[in-house]
């Protein structure tokens, strides 16, 4: 892990991955645990965020519960056409994330749209634009995740 982090920073990063209480002073319990003032906690969180060690502080929403549709999609793109196909795929605002992966299916992207119908329509458009098949892997079930990064 990164060397420039102090012990306090590490404890704070680990602690901030827990759920904070919904109260007027959400930093009070952390401040007490770490023997800091609440203002010191707020300042440190801001510093960690500004330094890019924390990406975001706030509520984490279940994207699907907010409405809208999501779908993981994959394409097998010939190497020599990769950049051209990428430009065409990314041109669709519905494509939210896109990753190159080392597999015959080498382009994996997530579409985020208002409706399920928009997902299928966008996939057909991408197939039309590129002449390549878009495989769709909609989520059938999500399993509970207990992930934490130990700073």
């Amino acid at each position: 892990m990164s060397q420039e982090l102090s012990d306090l920073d590490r404890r704070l990063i680990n602690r901030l991955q827990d759920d904070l209480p919904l109260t007027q002073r959400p930093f009070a319990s952390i401040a007490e645990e770490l023997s800091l003032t609440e203002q010191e906690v707020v300042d440190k969180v801001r510093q960690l965020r500004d330094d890019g060690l924390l990406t975001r502080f706030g509520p984490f929403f279940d994207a699907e519960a907010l409405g809208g549709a999501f779908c993981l999609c994959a394409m097998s793109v010939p190497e020599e056409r990769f950049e051209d196909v990428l430009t065409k795929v990314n041109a669709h605002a519905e494509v939210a994330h896109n990753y190159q992966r080392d597999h015959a299916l080498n382009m994996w992207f997530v579409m985020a749209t208002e409706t399920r119908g928009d997902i299928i329509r966008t996939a057909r458009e991408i197939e039309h634009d590129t002449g390549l098949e878009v495989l769709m892997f909609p989520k059938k079930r999500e399993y509970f995740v207990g992930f934490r990064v130990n700073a």
Partner: protein
Amino acid sequence: MTLDPKDRAIIEATQAGLPLVLQPYTVVAETLGIAESELLERLENLKKNGVIRRIGAAPNHYRLGMTANGMTVWDVDDSLVDDLGDKIGALPFVTHCYRRPRALPMWPYNLFAMVHGASRDEVHAKRDRVAELLGDACRASDILFSTRILKKTGMRLRGQKG
């Protein structure tokens, strides 16, 4: 759950993050023109209903040394996949765990688990632990490392259509 306009306003006001001040909800309530007690009550409800998963910070994996991520994929017996999926999701190094449809014959895998680590070797070692958990229920598996981020945009709630 159905979100009423006030809920949607709260979500829109907080999805980029909370203000980093001593009393962030006081500031958000003022911005929205509602009482802080109502804001807290509504947030509590959104949490109960699963719209909000938690309130806290997201660490930057990359800056904290978790530079390798592998999408591990598994062909698991349909009658066992849900029980096993819960166990794999609970592993501390799995960030996402989903059951998805197969795309035969090219893609026989129905269980997807994203595994993070400091190196590819570490990701491989963690993948072995998933394989142990799955045992004979798993017929085939693969691991796909990401080699390049091609696009990354925040997913935001869009304004309601008029």
